[in-house]
């Protein structure tokens, strides 16, 4: 009977280790503080009506970015914990806090590793990009909304549910997957990982992956179907192009992740034998499948950043982008090629020299379109009137680091070399160089660049540049030692090592570097706070603070919720730049007046639906069957109820548009 109600849950699953108590405490205290502040300012209704239930992509975009920022702190904390452990765990010195080495016991250390990787990939980088795309893509193509506003809200709330779910182990269970960010079997099978950690891992990826998939479908349809009249595909801004490429990759690869991790869970839950080491299962099948998703995933994370940098370089060089067509072609080439290289992640599988050679060569080939992009950016800057603003600084940092890390990648793509360096810290350094320089710097640059568009004032330049330098210095300090350590033979995920290896000084330098990165992140937070304080000095009255090229700058800042008062007409690339050349100014009453605007209504259904999905997942992790069924049927009921609702839109009358436009441009 007790098992019926509580499944596998027992009292001992409640927090009792220092980190679960700490984590749970942080969640509870944080929650209470937030709730108290909202109650004090009487903002509950406002929060619910204006934000949580909103289907406005700009609001959803901001919520994505807020959530991703929180998760950046969360994942960063993991990083710091990992580095401190590695800095102090050389030799046989007795550990602290009950650990044999350092201050984390081996299993806990591995769990932190898993959590760090997954949080950074799924909840930080993906979250930021979905946020920025929500903010900017509809504006760049002259649309008012995405093709499916409800699915957009649902995608966001599934992302939130996934993010909460990955932290649930703090509160119930006390254990996360100790099997690495991709949880390879047979280690992740029930036989070797009997706890609920891997189940939490599977379900947080299932939930958030579903959200990403919905987002992917939505953006593809939006970009292909909702462009303004006159904007042909080859006139789209490059950020829109790369978003399209990235979303095509999402739609083509996320189903593979979903089904592969689900099969792993079938092994664990139903006692199936897909990837077990006995009963005819095949663990290498999992490794192949997960990397068929995994390699495209790394390009999902960088291609949108390429687009962001293309916009920034063109704007701050005062020129049109050099080689637009080749930019588009190379982005498409990268998209396609990224499906043909997955095997480079496990040359050591033993597929034979021919297979390894094929994948090695394909991997090398991918560097060519990437290099084409880099040459085009540099050519754009050539003879431009360059303004070294913060986004531009991030771009310079990106180009240098990315080239460096890319060459390390090309080195790894030689199977013979990879046999030596596989799963060493050299590999870890490679992919951190790539992801930090492209994805993270791209995100920071993009946020700085588009901040005035969304909030109506620019970010503080001086502090922004300081943060950039801290990032660069911190990055070099923490990752150059890893390249060296990799050559010295240090493998990834070491919770301790012999003192005689002589590695400790490198680990200490790396840990110092991480502290500098932490300072950089704090500086960025400080930058936002100071900028909000000084917003009056930095107000953007023109809607176009950087002399931009693309349509998003043709609206007032902050962008009104209906985006464009009058849908613009486009007949070429860099539409807004051309408008400015023709002497057209936005914000002036058009001769034929404004039109009524149809917009989508708010809805709380996405929240309820994600809540039920969350409950279902929780029930499945803990084998609480009634809860799982409740969640599943609740979610189905939500879908059905929503399908009966045909009253999902409202009309904003032309007179009201006129009033709002006057207000927006009066400043």
């Amino acid at each position, binding site marked *: 009977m007790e098992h019926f109600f509580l499944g596998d849950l027992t009292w001992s699953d409640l927090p009792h280790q220092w980190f679960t108590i700490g984590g749970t405490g942080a969640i509870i205290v944080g929650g209470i503080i937030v709730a108290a502040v909202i109650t004090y300012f009487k903002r509950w209704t406002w929060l619910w009506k204006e934000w949580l239930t909103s289907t406005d992509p700009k609001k959803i975009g901001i919520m994505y970015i807020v959530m991703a920022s929180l998760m950046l702190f969360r994942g960063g904390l993991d990083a710091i914990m990992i580095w401190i452990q590695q800095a102090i765990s050389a030799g046989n010195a007795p550990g602290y806090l009950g650990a044999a080495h350092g201050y984390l016991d081996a299993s806990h250390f591995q769990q932190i590793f898993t959590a760090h990787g997954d949080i950074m990939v799924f909840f930080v980088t993906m979250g930021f990009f979905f946020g920025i795309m929500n903010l900017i893509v509809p504006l760049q193509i002259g649309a008012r909304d995405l*093709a499916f506003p409800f699915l957009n809200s649902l995608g966001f709330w599934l992302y939130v549910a996934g993010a909460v779910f990955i932290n649930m182990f703090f509160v119930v269970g006390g254990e996360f997957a100790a099997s690495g960010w991709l949880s390879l079997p047979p280690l992740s099978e029930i036989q070797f990982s009997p706890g609920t950690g891997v189940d939490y891992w599977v379900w947080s990826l299932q939930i958030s992956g579903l959200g990403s998939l919905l987002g992917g479908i939505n953006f593809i349809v939006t970009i292909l179907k909702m462009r303004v009249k006159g904007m042909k595909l080859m006139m789209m801004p490059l950020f829109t192009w790369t978003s399209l490429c990235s979303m095509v990759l999402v739609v083509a690869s996320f189903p593979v992740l979903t089904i592969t991790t689900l099969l792993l869970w079938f092994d664990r839950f139903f006692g*199936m034998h897909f990837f077990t080491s006995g009963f005819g299962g095949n663990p290498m099948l999992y490794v192949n499948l997960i990397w068929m998703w995994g390699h495209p995933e790394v390009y999902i994370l960088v291609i949108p950043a390429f687009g962001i940098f293309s916009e920034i370089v063109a704007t701050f060089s005062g020129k049109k982008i050099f080689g637009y067509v080749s930019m588009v072609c190379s982005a498409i080439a990268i998209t396609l090629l990224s499906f043909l290289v997955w095997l480079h992640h496990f040359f050591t599988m033993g597929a034979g020299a021919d297979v390894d050679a094929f994948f090695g060569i394909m991997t090398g080939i991918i560097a060519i379109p990437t290099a084409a992009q880099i040459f085009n950016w540099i050519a754009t800057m050539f003879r431009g009137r360059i303004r070294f603003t913060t986004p531009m600084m991030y771009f310079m940092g990106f180009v240098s680091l990315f080239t460096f890390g890319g060459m390390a990648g090309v080195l790894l793509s030689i199977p013979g070399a990879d046999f030596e360096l596989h799963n060493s810290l050299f590999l870890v350094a490679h992919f951190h160089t790539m992801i930090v320089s492209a994805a993270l710097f791209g995100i920071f640059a993009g946020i700085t660049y588009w901040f005035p568009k969304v909030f109506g004032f620019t970010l503080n330049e001086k502090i922004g540049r300081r943060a950039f330098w801290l990032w660069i210095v911190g990055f070099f300090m923490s990752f150059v030692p890893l390249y060296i350590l990799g050559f010295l033979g240090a493998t990834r995920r070491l919770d301790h090592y012999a003192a005689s290896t002589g590695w400790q000084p490198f680990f200490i330098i790396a840990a110092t570097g991480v502290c500098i990165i932490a300072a950089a992140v704090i500086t960025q937070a400080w930058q936002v706070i100071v900028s909000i304080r000084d917003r009056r000095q930095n107000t953007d009255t023109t809607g176009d603070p950087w002399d931009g090229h693309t349509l998003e700058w043709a609206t007032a800042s902050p962008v009104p919720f209906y985006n464009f008062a009058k849908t613009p007409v486009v007949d070429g690339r860099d539409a807004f730049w051309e408008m400015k050349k023709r002497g057209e100014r936005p914000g002036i009453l058009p001769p034929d007046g404004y039109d009524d605007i149809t917009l989508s209504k708010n809805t709380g259904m996405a929240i309820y639906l994600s809540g039920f999905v969350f409950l279902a997942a929780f029930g499945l992790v803990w084998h609480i069957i009634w809860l799982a069924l409740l969640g599943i049927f609740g979610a189905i009921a939500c879908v059905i109820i929503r399908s009966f609702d*045909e009253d999902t839109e409202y009309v904003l009358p032309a007179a009201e548009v006129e009033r709002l436009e006057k207000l927006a441009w009066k400043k």
Partner: protein
Amino acid sequence: MEKIMEKNDTHAFGFWVYLMTDIIIFGVLFAVYMVLRANTFGGPTSNDLFSLPTALVNTLVLLTSSFTCGLMTLAARKGKVNQTIAWLIATFALGATFLALELGEFSRFIAIGASWQRSAFLSSFFTLVGTHGLHIAVGLLWIIVAIVQLKLRGLTPGVTSKLTRFALFWHFLDIVWIFIFTTVYLMGML
């Protein structure tokens, strides 16, 4: 009116993209089945288990349901509500028959100890065929909702567009089944 047409067009396109993702899911399941089908681990093989008549009857039932689904689309296009509902009910009955036959097959296998826990081959068999069956079950639920909406609202643009998407979904499942029939059942009995 033009707006509504445009919107239905967008919805249909979005649904196509969704179907692409489903194709990829089935594609992975087929690939997994192909890799694991020989791994019977001393347990029953496909030759021991499958029977051609059952699979053939299943196929015929599902093909017929695709036919009735097509007739439903035609009726909807002509604006005949009652006929549309009648064909939806026929499709439902055939789909339910298919599902019952499939579950019957599953329980026969389990009764002789050939469950999904027996071997990697059986895990992949149950998962591939079961995933298709689950889709059919979702389709059945969809039919019920569609019938209710037809009764309440008639053939409004919104309802018609949903029916179009349902028909896409159902034909898609039919195609997937043809693949299952050939690669799992026919090839398994060679």
